[in-house]
């Protein structure tokens, strides 16, 4: 009891005044924070100054301070010029992100609920352990493995032929119509078990009395899932949804870059790949930065909008 009281007292002196005595007292903290502040400014805030490049005709030789300002010309070029093909790239990023988000969430929730239905720990634990192993493999490895599985002599074609679902091998990476599905599958393969951990934790936190009461009232297992488990994980679901929607446009690089090829370029290129191609390969820093700013602005807008929606519905929020 005494301990609790003491804690409260410390809480009360939250808004203390800046006095010399206090500064002296926490000299160590202030010195550390000074270095951390410098580090943070250099590595996180200074790049923001680079956004100026988007409004310039940036020449590496002249630098940010010497290059000529051109106003919104880069953005105009980005949005209007058909040959740059920026809008298809935005479309790819958005829809691939959305498809990944939906399939990943559905798979994670499904997996968590079904795993929770297994009562024997001897079976449950090994399945769970195996399920999140792929999360720790790099995308290089995962895309390599996937490429093997889907290649002409790979297991997928072998099975399709065996069961007569196709009469000749399908070259999955040569047809644009398969690409988004392959990317979504790659994400599910790698992340389902990992994403399910958080849902499993949420399910464990549900009061067991609810299930007992439902059993007494004669509810079946499916009914219990529908009326107890699903509402129970809703807050977790909402938070994750918010985080992921904010990251929707950020989630389109590694897989698409590693699995994409000339034949599927039209559907595989994302904003990040666009930035890499124009900014680094073509050395057009200004255009690359403009595309990057577009992505950042959309991302932050998405976060704010969905945070607000959640707030209005009274659910848990991000911040």
């Amino acid at each position, binding site marked *: 009891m005494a301990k609790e009281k003491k804690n409260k007292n410390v809480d009360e002196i939250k808004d203390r005044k800046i006095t010399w005595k206090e500064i002296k007292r926490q000299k160590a903290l202030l010195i550390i924070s000074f270095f951390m502040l410098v580090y943070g400014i250099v590595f996180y805030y200074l790049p923001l*100054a680079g956004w100026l490049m988007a409004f310039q005709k940036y020449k590496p030789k002249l630098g940010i301070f010497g290059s000529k300002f051109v106003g919104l010309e880069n953005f105009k070029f980005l949005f209007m010029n058909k040959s740059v093909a920026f809008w298809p790239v935005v479309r790819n990023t958005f829809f691939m992100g959305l498809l990944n988000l939906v399939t990943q969430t559905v798979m994670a929730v499904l997996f968590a609920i079904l795993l929770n239905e297994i009562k024997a720990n001897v079976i449950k634990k090994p399945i769970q352990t195996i399920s999140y192993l792929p999360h720790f493999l790099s995308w290089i490895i995962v895309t390599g493995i996937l490429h093997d599985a889907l290649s002409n002599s790979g297991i997928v074609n072998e099975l399709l032929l065996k069961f007569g679902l196709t009469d000749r091998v399908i070259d999955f990476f040569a047809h644009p119509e398969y690409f988004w599905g392959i990317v979504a599958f790659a994400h599910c393969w790698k992340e389902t078990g990992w994403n399910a951990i958080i849902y499993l934790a949420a399910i464990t936190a549900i009061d067991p009395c609810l299930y007992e009461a439902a059993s007494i009232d004669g509810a079946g297992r499916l009914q219990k899932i529908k009326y107890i488990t699903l509402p129970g994980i809703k807050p977790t679901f909402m938070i994750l949804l918010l985080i992921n929607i904010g990251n929707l446009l950020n989630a389109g690089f590694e897989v698409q870059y590693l699995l994409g090829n000339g034949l599927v370029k039209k559907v595989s290129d994302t904003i990040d790949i666009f930035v890499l191609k124009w900014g680094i390969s073509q050395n057009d820093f200004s255009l690359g930065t403009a595309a990057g700013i577009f992505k950042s602005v959309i991302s932050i807008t998405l976060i704010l909008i969905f945070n607000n929606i959640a707030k209005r519905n009274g659910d848990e929020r991000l911040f």
Partner: protein
Amino acid sequence: MRKHKHYTAESIIFDIFIAIFMLAFIIITVYPVINTIAISFNDGTDAVRGGIHLWPRKFSLRNFKTVLKMEDLLVGAKNSVLRTVLATLSSLFACALLAFVLSRKRFLFKRGFSLFWVITMYVNGGMIPTFVLYKSLGLTNSFWVYVVPGMVSAWNMLVLRTYMHGLPDSLEESAQLDGAGYWTVFTKIISPLCKPVYATIALFVAVYQWNSWFDSMLYNRLADEHTTLQYELMKLLSSVMQQSTSAEAAKNSAATVTPVTIRAAATVVTMLPIICLYPFLQRYFVTGLTIGGVKE
């Protein structure tokens, strides 16, 4: 009687569905990994015929011998180990220190400085400005680009801070009454209590570092001496992707190693540390996720 209540028709069908789902899930997860291992131990020319599943058909260690002789791959492996060790230690130290400062109740700029770091989680300059910055700081074509830029991460810091917030304040107070400074409180009192969360963060950083390849490509493409294992694997992969259509050519050649088996062997070498350590360390990953939660 109550026990038997579970065995309704609905319940049995549901159990069968769960069993099938989980079986399919495990097979789909595990099969490709085992298949890659099998191919890596198979003779190269024989592997081109396809049809290798869970076990090598014509056993051979030649793929690994070839891989372990590849100069670039060895340099990459050395750099990967080095960056993983250095970045993990430095990042853990820096993040823990920052978390410690920001979790002190008395700290004068607690609120403002926390916000300073939270903002970095949502706003960043993007690829090109970052590239320009690193170039002007001399971090391109340099090993240090792997260690310095990611050292302080707001995400990891927040997980650590949440954990430190959960420790009783009286620990710090009583130590300070005994004349301990903040540094002593950090090293002698808080840090020993944070061991589990330190382990988790260290593992996260280590896995991230081990698996990174994009920074090698972006910043050190022209500096072969700073390449990493993952980047070398990626180069192997893209060369295989281009050659996979000309598998016929490989069939006719007399070589006993082929791009496919070489890459399988390189893949196995790359994932070996993770697969080996995984069973022992996996519980730390999960604890970390639940400690930090997704909040904040």
